[in-house]
């Protein structure tokens, strides 16, 4: 059967649609069917259901496929999470969204697979703790231990940063990260001085002393970037070789 024949055949079959000579029911037939079916249904039906909350919920549950509902739920959760992350950025210790802020930072650290990069990121977040401590101090909230809390977390972040750096294997990455972390450490030392300054008697206010000490000790654990001594040694060797050659030529060295 060629294409033309097939097309003609299909067209002819379609012409049977609604054709009485091809089984389409007459009006009499339809009327008889209606009488039979609808009389049975009428005897058993109730009035239209009035939409209430349970009806609407049930209908939604029925109409929406499980896969679609799951996808929408995931999108909604992600949207809520993103909104929480954005609004929690300015949160301080003791605020409702502070936990969300820390959770966002932890998530970011977890998704940083490179240990050297993770160390730098952790150190940056440590800086956030100092910023929080400074803001609390400026708001006058030093009395209720919130600054202590921030400083304690700062110390913990710095320690975790140095630990992460020890896990890094690539010497080039380690070198770059060490330099960056050390620079931040210097900045942070000055910041701690500002937040918890020594009095004229060079003692800190009781209560924040331990936290400040802990923070400074953590910064002491940050390694200084290595001085580039290898090049100097190489240059020294080269100079010595040239000197030796010169002496040999001039016969000053007896062999």
């Amino acid at each position, binding site marked *: 059967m060629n294409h033309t024949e097939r097309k003609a055949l299909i067209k002819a079959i379609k012409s049977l649609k609604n054709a009485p000579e091809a089984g389409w029911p007459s009006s009499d037939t339809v009327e008889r069917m209606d009488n039979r079916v609808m009389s049975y249904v009428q005897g058993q039906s109730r009035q239209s259901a009035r939409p209430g909350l349970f009806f609407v919920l049930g209908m939604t549950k*029925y109409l929406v496929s499980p896969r679609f509902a799951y996808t929408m739920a995931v999108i909604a959760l992600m949207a809520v999470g993103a909104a929480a992350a954005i609004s929690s950025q300015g949160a301080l210790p003791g605020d409702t969204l502070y936990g969300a802020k820390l959770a966002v930072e932890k998530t970011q650290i977890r998704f940083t697979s490179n240990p050297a990069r993770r160390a730098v990121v952790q150190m940056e977040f440590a800086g956030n703790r100092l910023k929080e401590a400074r803001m609390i101090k400026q708001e006058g909230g030093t009395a209720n231990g919130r600054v202590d809390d921030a400083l304690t977390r700062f110390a913990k972040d710095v320690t975790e940063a140095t630990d992460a750096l020890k896990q890094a294997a690539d010497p080039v990455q380690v070198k770059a990260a060490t330099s960056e972390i050390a620079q931040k450490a210097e900045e942070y030392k000055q910041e701690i001085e500002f937040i918890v300054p020594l009095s004229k008697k060079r003692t800190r206010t009781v209560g924040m002393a331990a936290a400040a000490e802990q923070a400074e000790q953590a910064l002491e654990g940050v390694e200084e970037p290595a001085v580039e001594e290898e090049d100097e040694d190489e240059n020294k060797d080269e100079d010595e070789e040239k000197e030796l050659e010169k002496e040999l030529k001039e016969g000053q060295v007896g062999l």
Partner: protein
Amino acid sequence: MQKLKEKYLVFRISEGQDQQAFTQLYSLYREKIYQFVYFKVSSQEDAEDLASQVFLKAWEYLTDDNARRVQNFRAFIYQLTRNLVIDYYRMQGRAPQNVELEDIEEESAIEDPRSTFLLNQLYAEDRKYLDECLKQVKEAYREVIVLRYLEEIGIEEIAEIIEKNPGNVRVLIHRGLKSLRSVILSSNRKSLYEPHRTQSTNQSNQESEKRS
């Protein structure tokens, strides 16, 4: 959108035995189901009886808290119809005609240079005759042809209705069309295309005489 509307109506029937919702669905499918049954049983009285039963059964099923199982009302109503017709056959002591997809092709296509011309003429003029030819095609083929070209249902949905895979449905449709074509061309009916047949039959008779 139509499917969603039907789902909503099914839900209303299931939750509240809503007569108005059922009436809407019944009106949509009443004639189609009748014609579908007619092509199976070839009797108007039986078609009317069976088609009515289809909707009574559908009402009972839906009001028995089964709405969740009916994701596609159209597929559901056609499946219900098929099952009722099978029960009807059993009551009559008849076995429904099935075809194995591995069956050898029935008749080879008749290579007739007049066929396209004749078919075009035929199809344009006599639906009753085409209906009679269609009834001579095996039921399994006829069923898919009716669903595809009269009810205009997609292959995937037909597969769902007759519980086969889409590939099998395509094969059945292809064989069904070939079978219908063979029935038409091999028919002894002369009244419609006799003038054409006379002219070209004379020619072909002359040619065969020359050869012999």
